[in-house]
């Protein structure tokens, strides 16, 4: 295969994987703190329209990206207030947040349908991005792609190397014990939720500013759900999330190439590949039961109330 084609295929894999990775890494940190927010899809859509609307109105993509993060955080704040302060059920509140977000994003976006914005520019580094193959792949991406990779490294460092990460994991594994030691369970969970919201918002911004620079209702088309599944796939480890997002994105692209080969397989079956592959790989990496238990936050989804 020509290297230009290979580069181009890899570029489309990066594009398909980045929104999953951005939203996934946010949710991973949220879940590590013991909170399950199923509202990723809703936060993503609000981020997508906030980012698009501000970019379109101001002409500044940087402001747009900021607005997307803030939009996602505002949604996450609603979730956190309901589930952490008011102790509402996390699973149902997350689903309700998605319904709310779909409506809110559609209402915010009513005036923005049918307008283009310029695609988020690549941060072309002089000379470096001219290197064959590696250049466009490694040095020609846009800000959000680099940010998604940085977020994986950052989250990995935070969770395993920093004191804050230790506290967060302790809270996720046993909030009662963490509380007894004196860690501020609710405050840390609030912060985690806000981080998750910001990342979902950025995933939305990637959709409406880079992947397909436009706004259309429900444009996330279920990617928030895939991101959620990938956190489980990753067994709550940032490195594996990177792997999972790129595996899923890669097979999504691959299935279109398989379709054009004319193997006589109905396209519906080819389209199943990403889902089936994710299940298969999860089974393979999960069979070692002891390692999974070490990672799954024991308090995931359970409400916490400081006794006394």
């Amino acid at each position: 295969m020509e290297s230009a084609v290979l580069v181009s295929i890899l570029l489309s894999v990066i594009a398909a994987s980045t929104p999953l990775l951005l939203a996934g890494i946010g949710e991973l940190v949220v879940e590590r703190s013991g909170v399950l927010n199923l509202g990723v899809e809703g936060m993503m859509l609000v981020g997508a329209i906030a980012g698009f609307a501000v970019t379109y109105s101001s002409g500044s993509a940087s402001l747009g990206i900021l607005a997307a993060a803030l939009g996602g955080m505002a949604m996450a704040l609603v979730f956190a207030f309901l589930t952490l302060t008011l102790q509402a059920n996390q699973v149902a509140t997350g689903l309700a947040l998605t319904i709310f977000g779909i409506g809110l994003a559609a209402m915010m976006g009513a005036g923005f349908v049918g307008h283009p914005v310029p695609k988020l520019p690549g941060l072309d580094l002089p000379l470096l991005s001219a290197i064959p193959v590696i250049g466009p792949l490694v040095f020609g991406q846009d800000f959000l792609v680099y940010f998604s990779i940085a977020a994986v490294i950052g989250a990995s460092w935070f969770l395993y190397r920093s004191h804050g990460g230790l506290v967060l994991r302790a809270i996720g594994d046993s909030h009662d014990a963490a509380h007894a030691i004196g860690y501020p369970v609710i405050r840390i969970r609030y912060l985690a939720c806000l981080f998750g919201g910001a990342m979902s918002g950025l995933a939305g911004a990637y959709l409406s500013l880079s992947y397909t620079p436009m706004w259309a209702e429900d444009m996330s088309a279920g990617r928030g759900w895939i991101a959620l599944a990938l956190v489980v796939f990753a067994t709550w480890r940032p490195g594996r999330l990177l792997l999972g997002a790129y595996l899923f994105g890669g097979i999504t692209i691959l299935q279109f190439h398989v379709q054009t080969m004319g193997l006589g397989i109905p396209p519906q079956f080819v389209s199943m590949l990403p889902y089936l592959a994710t299940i298969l790989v999860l089974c393979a990496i999960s069979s070692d039961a002891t390692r999974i238990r070490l990672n799954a936050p024991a308090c995931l989804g359970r409400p916490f109330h400081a006794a006394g």
Partner: protein
Amino acid sequence: MHLEIIARGERSRTWAYLSPVLAIVLTLVTSAFIFAFLGKDPLAALKVMWIDPVLTKRGFAELFVKAAPLVMIAIGLALGFRANVWNIGAEGQFIMGAIFATGVALYFYEVQNWPVWLAMIPAGILGGALWGAIPAFLKLRFNANEILTSLMLTYVASLILLYLVAGPWKDPDGYGFPQSRMFSDAANSPRLISGTRIHVGVFASLGIVILGWFLLQKSMLGFQLKVLGQAPRAAAFAGFSTRGLTWLSLLVGGGLAGLAGMFEVAGPIGQLTPALPTGYGFTAIIVAFLGRLHPIGILFGGLVLALSYLGGEKAQIALGLPAAVVKINQGILLFYLLACDLFIRYRVKIATGRAA
């Protein structure tokens, strides 16, 4: 000044009933403000959304037709959620139930007799249960988390549906459009009340509420599930089989979702179409928790949510509100309903000064 939330010694029975009332009042007030902001008469708009849908016999019947699959699926899910089995793929199990039932309906297309319909019932349950069995097997054999597997299998199920209606099961007289032929009358659920779409499935749902109530609240099994969910280790000590309960949760959850799928194709729709999945499986998760995983609560949860859908359609037609406003209202209703449950277990005090 801030809110202080203090745990009650035990669950308040009064608030168990009062909290939904409070939530609905709060929703009505909030919605009224939204309507006023949008330039609609708030009281008239509230009437359109919450009262008009059930003013006629047909409307009242539609409420139950819409709620039936939600309630049926939610009861099955509640079983699993009590045991911490996170089946979020009921949508896929719903689709597979519809597919299996359709298989029977099409295979016996020439048989113009009611046993066809009768045979579709176990087929639907089987289809859903089979699709629920896969996550159960993968969880117990490979330790694979059911959140991921059940969700991914939903996408697979909808692609199987697309394949069948565009390929082998395509209506031969349908100009190539991707849907099965209309079922013969024998394969459609009997309509029970003339002038409405109330079918046997609606009553089956009510039956399952009662059965579920007995099973979850009154039987040893319900107790085992509860213990497993709240204290897995205690359950192990007591000799409850985690494996057995995981199987049971996913088979029953899948089976009921499949049954709901069967009643959907054999009732209001009457054929297999790619438009079958409309998110019942996901909405039912909300219904399960709105009902606090209790069968009677689920029945009410399902009715409230169904009413919000019907009212949303009314609002679009009578008030010219876009679907987005309807969704936002629905989200707010759910937020209030979920948040007000706080009062069952906690007292809220408005305190001044710093918290202790």
